[in-house]
């Protein structure tokens, strides 16, 4: 986790001091654009965590694997964390650049907001509902549905080019980006991905210990 934090931190510092400046003539907020050096990697990391949610949900729904249930719980929390990073930093940049924090007509913003709301729902549901097979099925079904939104969210800017900037990776050259910016993004993404794996491992350890504790407490009773 420390290595991930360090690498992501270096990415942030490089984004703040080394990345090229934007022209004040073509941007309303030429410095605030530097938000993207964590905003974009956080979005990519959230796509990874939604992928983990999909795998966990599928493993539970298809094969009733206990590890699938554990993984989907961890992934929902991490999806909420990185989703919140995106939906908080995005509107801050929107306020600076567009003059409004949110554009309700932009499908990329709205599909990503639904994705993050879904992660919030899953985290709250898991904490408030009794752990029954029926609940696990509903939870996993929603987790599977959530992953369907990932490609839709990613492609939203290509299918309906609205306010949010277009796709960069896999754009076929249309959304070419400065190589320095891309390198810093990749560095920050590597850091966040390592951090996320570390957080997932600690969360898994917590769940393992809680399970063991419950077993021992039963023996005590």
């Amino acid at each position, binding site marked *: *986790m420390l290595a991930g*934090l360090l690498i992501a931190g270096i990415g*942030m510092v490089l984004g*703040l001091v080394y990345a090229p400046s934007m022209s004040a003539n073509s941007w309303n*907020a*030429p*410095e*605030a654009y*530097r*938000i993207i050096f*964590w*905003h974009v990697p*956080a979005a990519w990391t959230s796509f990874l965590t939604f992928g983990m949610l999909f795998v966990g949900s599928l493993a539970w729904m298809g094969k009733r694997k206990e590890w699938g249930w554990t993984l989907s719980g961890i992934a929902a*929390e991490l999806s909420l*964390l990185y989703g*919140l*990073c995106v939906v*908080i*930093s995005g509107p*801050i*940049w929107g*306020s*600076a650049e567009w003059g409004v924090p949110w554009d309700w007509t932009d499908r990329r913003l709205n599909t990503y907001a639904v994705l993050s709301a879904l992660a919030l729902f899953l985290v709250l549901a898991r904490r408030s509902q009794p752990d029954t097979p029926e609940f696990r099925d509903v939870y996993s079904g929603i987790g599977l549905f959530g992953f369907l939104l990932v490609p839709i969210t990613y492609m939203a800017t290509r299918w309906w080019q609205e306010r949010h900037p277009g796709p960069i990776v896999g754009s076929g050259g249309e959304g070419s980006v400065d190589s320095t910016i891309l390198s810093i993004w990749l560095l920050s993404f590597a850091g966040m991905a390592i*951090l996320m794996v570390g*957080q997932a491992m*600690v*969360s898994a*350890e*917590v769940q393992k*210990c*809680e399970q*063991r*504790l419950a077993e*021992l*407490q039963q*023996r*005590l009773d």
Partner: protein
Amino acid sequence: MDDLWYLAAAYASMIGLIGWFTWQILDRLSNVKARLDAVEDTLGEKDSEEIDASSEE
């Protein structure tokens, strides 16, 4: 200058969120490990008392 305030606010919120989440899972881990150790100690004592009692019989 306003521009930089937006930048600072965005990074502060992201660092705060990631830092808070990381701290709370590490805190949860140390808490649950402490509870687990306590229960294991209690069970260990209980088991050894049971062994002592059965050997006295």
